[in-house]
């Protein structure tokens, strides 16, 4: 059996580890590229969102590499993404591919559901072993996210653009290869240090730009045209509101105990929106209010035709205390030049706004 899952950021690293630990071969298709998108879009309904197109492209590229079992998130609690597995399965069968489609209902099944799925795919590996593999995978995920947070900071002030990313790529490969918790820990410390040692210049206090919006396009750099890297290049420090490790922690474990990371966000959103509108629309509204004091500005990313985020976007203008918000719509038709112009103007706006705030404070102090 050869298992494949779609890409989303660097989540393939912990997944590959998880499957390797229980003796299942995983096929990792090439990272998202023009080709992936072209393949996916060719077989997709035109107005479906970019996550559908890219994940379908991933499946096609994985099948070309010999994958025979496709794993996809599904089920209620998402948005129309919940139905994508079913539709993609039919599209791929129509194309003549032979495979088994396995769906995981993370929202429903929690930790044991995932464990059972892994158990099934591994032809009945012992539960103990499955749980250990999940823990190791999660540890890798956590390490990656921790390094990425530092990457976001270093990028903004690095002396030579791209040097922090080079270190991160090395870290990614090292983490992928790590075969024990001890080795992982050593790699984490080594690369945290390397990242901190990247030569810096530029502003000492760069403007801080938050990123919120739909889960997939926030996390998959190809879908948002490397938004985070471009912001770093412009000298802005990125604070992403979503990390997979955080989200996993809640959806696999804590939600089962009635704990939700989202309560706080929903409370913040309450004056404007008091119900789930599907996807991450509710959270996008909440994030803008929640972070109006600690970020200079916020970028809201949404797939083209995304219902929940369109609702959120139309609420933003009504929010009184908000910081500047720029909505970036992600689609295969999106032009890179147009996006870069907007980002550049946005960062400039934040910088001048902050300079003025500084002036106002200076004026008050005699």
């Amino acid at each position, binding site marked *: 059996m050869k298992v494949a899952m779609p890409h989303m950021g660097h989540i393939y690293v912990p997944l590959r580890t998880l499957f390797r630990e229980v003796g299942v071969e995983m096929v990792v298709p090439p990272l998202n590229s023009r080709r992936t998108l072209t393949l996916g879009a060719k077989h997709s309904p035109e107005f479906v969102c970019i996550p559908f197109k890219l994940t379908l492209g991933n499946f096609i590229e994985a099948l070309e590499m010999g994958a025979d079992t496709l794993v996809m998130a599904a089920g209620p609690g998402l948005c129309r993404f919940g139905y994508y597995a079913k539709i993609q399965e039919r599209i791929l069968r129509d194309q003549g591919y032979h495979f088994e489609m396995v769906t995981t209902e993370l929202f429903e099944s929690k930790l044991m559901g995932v464990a059972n799925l892994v158990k099934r795919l591994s032809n009945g590996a012992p539960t103990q072993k499955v749980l250990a593999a999940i823990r190791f995978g999660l540890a890798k995920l956590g390490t990656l996210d921790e390094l990425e947070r530092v990457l976001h900071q270093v990028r903004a002030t690095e002396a030579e653009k*791209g040097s922090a990313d080079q270190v991160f790529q090395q870290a990614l490969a090292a983490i992928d290869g790590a075969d024990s918790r001890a080795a992982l820990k050593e790699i984490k410390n080594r690369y945290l240090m390397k990242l901190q040692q990247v030569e810096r210049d530029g502003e000492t206090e760069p403007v801080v730009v938050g990123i919120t919006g739909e889960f997939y396009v926030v996390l998959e750099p190809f879908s948002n045209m490397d938004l985070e890297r471009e912001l770093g290049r412009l000298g802005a420090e990125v604070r992403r509101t979503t990390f997979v490790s955080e989200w996993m922690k809640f959806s696999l474990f804590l939600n089962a105990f009635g704990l939700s990371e989202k309560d706080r966000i929903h409370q913040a959103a309450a004056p404007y929106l008091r119900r789930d509108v599907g996807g991450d629309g509710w959270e996008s509204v909440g994030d803008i209010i929640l972070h109006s004091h600690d970020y200079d500005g916020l970028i809201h990313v949404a797939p083209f035709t995304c219902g929940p985020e369109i609702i959120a976007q139309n609420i933003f*203008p*009504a929010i009184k205390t908000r910081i500047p918000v720029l909505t970036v719509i992600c689609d295969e038709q999106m032009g890179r030049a147009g996006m870069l*112009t907007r980002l550049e103007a946005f960062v400039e706006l934040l910088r001048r706004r902050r300079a003025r705030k500084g002036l106002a404070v200076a004026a008050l102090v005699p």
Partner: protein
Amino acid sequence: MEIYLGVDVGSVTTKLAALDENEGLVGSLYLRTQGKPIVMVQQGMRDIAECLPAGAVVRGVGTTGSARYLAGVLVGADVVKNEITAHAVGATHYVPDVQTIFEIGGQDSKIIILRQGVVVDFAMNTVCAAGTGSFLDQQASRLSMKIEDFGRQALESQMPVRIAGRCTVFAESDMIHKQQMGHRTEDILYGLCEALVRNYLNNIGLGKEILPPVVFQGGVAFNPGIVRAFEDTLKTKLIVPPYHEVMGAIGAALLAKEEIESHRRETQFRGFGISDMSFHTSSFECKACANICEIAQIMGDGKVVARWGGRCDMWERTSASVEQQA
């Protein structure tokens, strides 16, 4: 005399402005880009050089507009800035207390919100042409009318008709319908002005707090029909500043002056001789990964001066080193 140049290369028009050391406008140009930005920048530089008094020395040059990087490489820009910043800086120069800027050009339109001289919010139109100059251009030519006469005639309207304006396609069929029903041309024209204004305010103006003074600039500000439609809708007087059509170029020149003065450095201006250099562009597909990026390459007198277009830094870095060697 010391001169600061601003070059704004837009999709439809290329604008140049020359300011003296006191930030007074010495000369300006408004040309059609005609899909040939390199040629137009070269021609513009030749023409603007003729506007300058004898003994004028260029101290700095800035570029803006959608071809700002290309123009920046051609002229040797000291500063390359996005259109939002350039337009805001230009408008504040003439109307220091401006709080709202409407800018409508050939293929894009913007709204810029300023408070106390600082940009606090902006929006640019995304994929829709129904709020831009091309929309009017197209409809004027369909009525076989010069775009320059459009506004004057629209102002003669007594009983404007309502034109569906969400999309150029709907607008056009609605205009034909109204025309075949026997409505007067001026009423249709003013109806079209109102449709464009409605579109602009509903799309990029959505949720923006439009406070006076409102400055209206860009090529479409030449059209008095649009000015009146805005004023009727907003119940506010619009300021169309002098040189509004070259405001982005003026802003770029001011930004160049700011850059040179704050860093006390020499300009990187290549000189007016660039008009006689031979530049040409070519492109190739980079096969280093599956993204197959199209890399554009700009050659000046046989040497590579710049490369760009990739998703990664690979070619931009190469071009930097190529330039150093050259």
